[in-house]
């Protein structure tokens, strides 16, 4: 996703002189180096200084540029939080705050590098839009949307590297603010976003082996949430499962349950999120997800699937 973001940004920035990127001491992956070499004026590295990264983006946007702030999710959002809130959201300027390694992607780096509550924190700020693509193809579509939008600040939550493709053959294109069905079934609907889509897709396979038809949905736009789309998913399936790599407070799962209650939804509804506690585990991304009960085996067991 990181390389796809960089390549897409590079292509968009070739066509639009207003696009710039401000990073905070992160190595320019993939095409970001190419962008830096070709457009040195539009690449700024503030060093390990995230407050000025966000502040500069605000000032550049107020002067008509379309900056992207770019570093690891914990440092792009948590460290300079009040700058994101005041400089970007209160002033409502079109700056994209890119968080690399949302969730527990940085699985060997410990809790300081886990953005477990980033989506909730970002979505809590008025004017903030939150987008979390699930694979490289969605990353491309989302990046292009961010590069062209003027509605205000966006938190673009990405994974890291090596995410498989889930959507390039999806029947529906990526559309901002809309649920995206990667395939449609009638019995079960799995709602997910971000790289943990790999678990959602594997779970769909287990449901199918158990004789169910399954919809898999990328809820890539967390805010504004496609509430009508959620209502429709709740009304047209017997069972809805939410899987997300985020803490329970402020989660998609919480919002889906709220909508389900308000609309008196009749379906079964299960949700799986990160736990509301810091863990001190290390290993692969899958190891960390398992430590939070977000692995295929744990989820399958709780849903009564073999």
């Amino acid at each position, binding site marked *: 996703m990181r390389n796809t973001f960089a390549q897409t940004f590079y292509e968009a920035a070739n066509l639009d002189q207003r696009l710039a990127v401000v990073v905070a001491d992160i190595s320019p992956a993939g095409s970001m180096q190419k962008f830096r070499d070709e457009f040195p004026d*539009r690449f700024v590295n503030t060093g390990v200084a995230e*407050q*000025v990264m966000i502040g500069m983006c605000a*000032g*550049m946007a107020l002067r*008509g540029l379309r900056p992207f702030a770019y570093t690891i999710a914990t440092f792009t959002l948590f460290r300079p939080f009040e700058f994101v809130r005041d*400089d970007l959201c209160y002033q409502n300027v079109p700056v994209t705050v890119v968080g690399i390694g949302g969730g527990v992607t940085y699985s060997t780096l410990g809790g300081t590098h886990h953005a477990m509550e980033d989506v909730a924190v970002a979505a809590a700020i008025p004017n903030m839009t939150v987008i979390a693509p699930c694979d490289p193809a969605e990353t491309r579509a989302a990046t292009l949307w961010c590069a062209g939008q003027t509605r205000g600040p966006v938190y673009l939550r990405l994974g890291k590297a090596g995410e498989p493709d889930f959507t390039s053959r999806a029947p529906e294109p990526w559309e901002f603010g809309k649920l995206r069905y990667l395939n449609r079934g009638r019995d079960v609907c799995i709602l997910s976003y971000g790289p943990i889509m790999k678990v959602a897709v594997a779970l769909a396979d287990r449901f199918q082996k158990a004789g169910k038809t399954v919809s898999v949905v990328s809820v890539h736009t967390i805010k504004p949430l496609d509430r009508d789309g959620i209502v429709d998913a709740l009304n047209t399936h017997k069972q809805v499962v939410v899987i997300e790599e985020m803490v329970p407070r402020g989660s998609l799962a919480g919002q889906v349950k709220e909508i389900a209650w308000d609309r008196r939804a009749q379906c079964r509804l299960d949700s799986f999120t990160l736990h509301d506690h810091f863990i001190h585990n290390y290993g692969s991304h899958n190891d960390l997800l398992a430590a939070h009960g977000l692995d295929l085996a744990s989820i399958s067991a709780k849903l009564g699937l073999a």
Partner: protein
Amino acid sequence: MEIEMGPASPPKFDVLAARRRCLAYRRRILDISQQVTALHVAPAFSCLEMVDLIYHGLMRRDPSRGNPGFLDGFVMSKGHGCLSQYVILEDLGVLTKTDLDRYCTPAGQLGAHPDYGVPGIEASTGSLGHGMGIATGMAYADKIRGDDRRTFLVLSDGEFQEGSTWEAMMMAANLNLENLIAFMDLNDFGGLARMSEGHPAFYPVLEKIRAFGFEAAEVNGHDAAAVLQAVVSRRGRQPFMVVGKTVKGRGVSFMEHFNIWHYRSPSKEEYEKAMAELAEVSS
């Protein structure tokens, strides 16, 4: 990008007229103080001469672009000093008398901190330590686009307790933003205590500013001619900062150096005493 600000072309600036203006601005601020209870009189008075100089002596204007047609930018990083900005914007016709009469009321658009979107206000401030970063981004955007606009910035000395100010200063220096001209309102007061007593390591100031890559000069911040001279005689190859030594509550004897006037509005009796002190005198 070269910015011509050498002594060969000093902006036209009438110091006596500025003195008269600043007396009138102080009286106007005190008038507003009689309408609402909460405002920042003393922090507006300490930076008033510098803000007046920026608007009337430094910011270039092109009347063909409307009134005031500023070609340069201004950010009031010490948002709590914004009354100084409001009364000047009223004088310039950017804000109306009604705007100021409705200060901090439900029908109005002006609050105790400047809000982006209000005419003449280029950034929302109030939380301290944000202005330097925003102004650095503005100046950088202008520079890479070849726009010769300059960005003027007024900060409180308290904002230099925020690490974010120093982060942004290093970046402004790294990026050689000679189009960024900052003014520190060195009134030596925080909200709680004198900086020199509560935070003595802040001093000496000038050396620190220079050590972070700014060209800088320390002058009496109430002496507009001295501030102007410092700005026009700068070398102009780096970002510049005037360290303006000021008096909190400047202009009203019983407000000077008394920190209660950071927040307090004068009573009717105090108001009249202050207005008498601020009456125009022939100089």
